[in-house]
């Protein structure tokens, strides 16, 4: 007996007819075999009490003739399904808002604004300019968007990018001035090193202190200057060989005026400066060297420029 108990499933395998020939032969010679065989044979002649399934089926037919019961009390969910959807939307909006949180600074006509960025870098915005940047992760992603003119004093750190319509200015701790208006793009480097990438020219230039570059009508101009700080911070705008159109835009921004330029050649270049404090003085300093005359049209609130021939 003992040796068959050793293997738990031996007898079960025997019943199922799964023993090998040798195993079976050995087993048939054991003294337990006749008894177990008799038990097996006899137990197969047994039967359970008769089960009157037809009677039960008839009973069931009576009981189930009605429609299957639907649960009597409707189940009202504690949290309806739409609440999950709404929660997801709220969280997504929140994430979107945080990820895209922007600081936005704007200057109006004849305004200037100094902005201190989260890393203590400073931006000085000239008149009629816009500056945007994402406040989240500022330290690892120092990028801002500029429209107009601004002077940057950048703290050392990761790369610092100024994105404009016309190109990208990239620096590692330095001072520089950027003008980006419509298609005009100008960068002056005061300190450190600046890399300027022009979108329209698909070209990158590295500027050292005292160097400046501008892109007008898809052509690139480089020049040198000696200022430590742009003059507009001191109440004066300075130009070196700049197209008169840009000079007039700068005047418009400082004094909130409008020029009628239909009668003059906008591609002429201007070198010089105008003050921010006195409009008539500024107009004279710009128009005289350029051989222009101006008349103020009070009705339309515009200043008409004419070439003196």
């Amino acid at each position, binding site marked *: *007996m003992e040796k068959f108990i050793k293997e738990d*499933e031996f007898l079960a395998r025997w019943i199922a007819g799964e023993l090998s020939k040798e195993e079976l032969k050995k087993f048939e010679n054991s003294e337990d075999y006749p008894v177990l065989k008799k038990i097996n044979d006899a*137990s197969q002649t047994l039967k*359970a009490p008769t089960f009157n399934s037809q009677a039960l089926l008839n009973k*069931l037919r009576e009981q189930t003739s009605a429609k299957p019961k639907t649960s009597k009390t409707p189940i009202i969910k504690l949290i309806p399904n739409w609440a999950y959807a709404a929660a997801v939307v709220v969280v997504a909006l929140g994430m979107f808002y945080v990820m895209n949180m922007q600081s936005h600074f704007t200057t109006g006509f004849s305004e200037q604004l100094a902005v201190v960025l989260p890393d203590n870098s400073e931006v000085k915005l000239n008149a009629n300019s816009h500056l945007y940047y994402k406040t989240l992760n500022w330290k690892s992603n120092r990028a801002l968007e500029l429209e107009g003119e601004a002077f940057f004093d950048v703290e050392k750190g990761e790369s610092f990018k100024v994105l404009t319509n016309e190109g990208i200015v990239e620096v590692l701790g330095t001072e520089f001035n950027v003008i980006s208006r419509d298609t005009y793009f100008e960068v002056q480097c005061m300190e450190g090193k600046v890399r300027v990438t022009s979108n329209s020219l698909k070209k990158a230039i590295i500027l050292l202190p005292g160097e400046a570059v501008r892109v007008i009508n898809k052509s690139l101009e480089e020049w040198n200057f000696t200022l430590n700080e742009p003059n507009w911070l001191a109440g004066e705008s300075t130009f070196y060989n700049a197209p008169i159109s840009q000079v007039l835009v700068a005047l418009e921004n400082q004094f909130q005026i409008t020029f009628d330029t239909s009668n003059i050649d906008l591609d002429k270049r201007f070198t010089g400066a105008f003050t921010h404090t006195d409009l008539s003085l500024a107009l004279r300093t710009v128009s005289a060297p350029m051989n222009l005359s101006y008349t103020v049209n009070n009705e339309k609130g515009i200043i008409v420029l004419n070439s003196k021939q």
Partner: protein
Amino acid sequence: MSSETKSVCEKVTYEYLFNTHSKTLYNYIYYKCGDEQQAEDIVQDAFIKLWNNCSKVVFDKAKSFLYTVARNIFLNEVAHKKIVLEHQNTQINKVSNETPQFILEEQEFMQKLKTAIANLPEKQREVFLLSRIDKKKYSEIAEITGVSLKAVEKRMSLALVTLRKQFGKI
């Protein structure tokens, strides 16, 4: 009747399930409790439950649903009785040309066997009888009783060992 789309709520499907499973279900519960009336009641309750939940139970799962429900009902109202098994008379007629003494001994053996089976632990008994009387394969018994195949084989072997111990040499 192999289609997965068969709804248990359909009368035809429902009665097919009844005809296929009710007898084994009845025997299974009877082997557990030894009470014919209780076994019948439990079979009835299990099938009523199946009907009430017919929209939630897919056809393929109906069988295990029935056995699980029956098992749970049984556990909730255990009232054990000794099981009483019957002979299949045909078998005895075959050996009627033996001596009266042999017949007497046979009858004694059968009586002893029935008592021994009735005294088996419930888990061994249900496996042993589902195999020997209802001729179910071990895999099917495993599904009915809700335990693993290995456990069924173990219980089968144990049942035989237990029964063997009731008899001396023959």
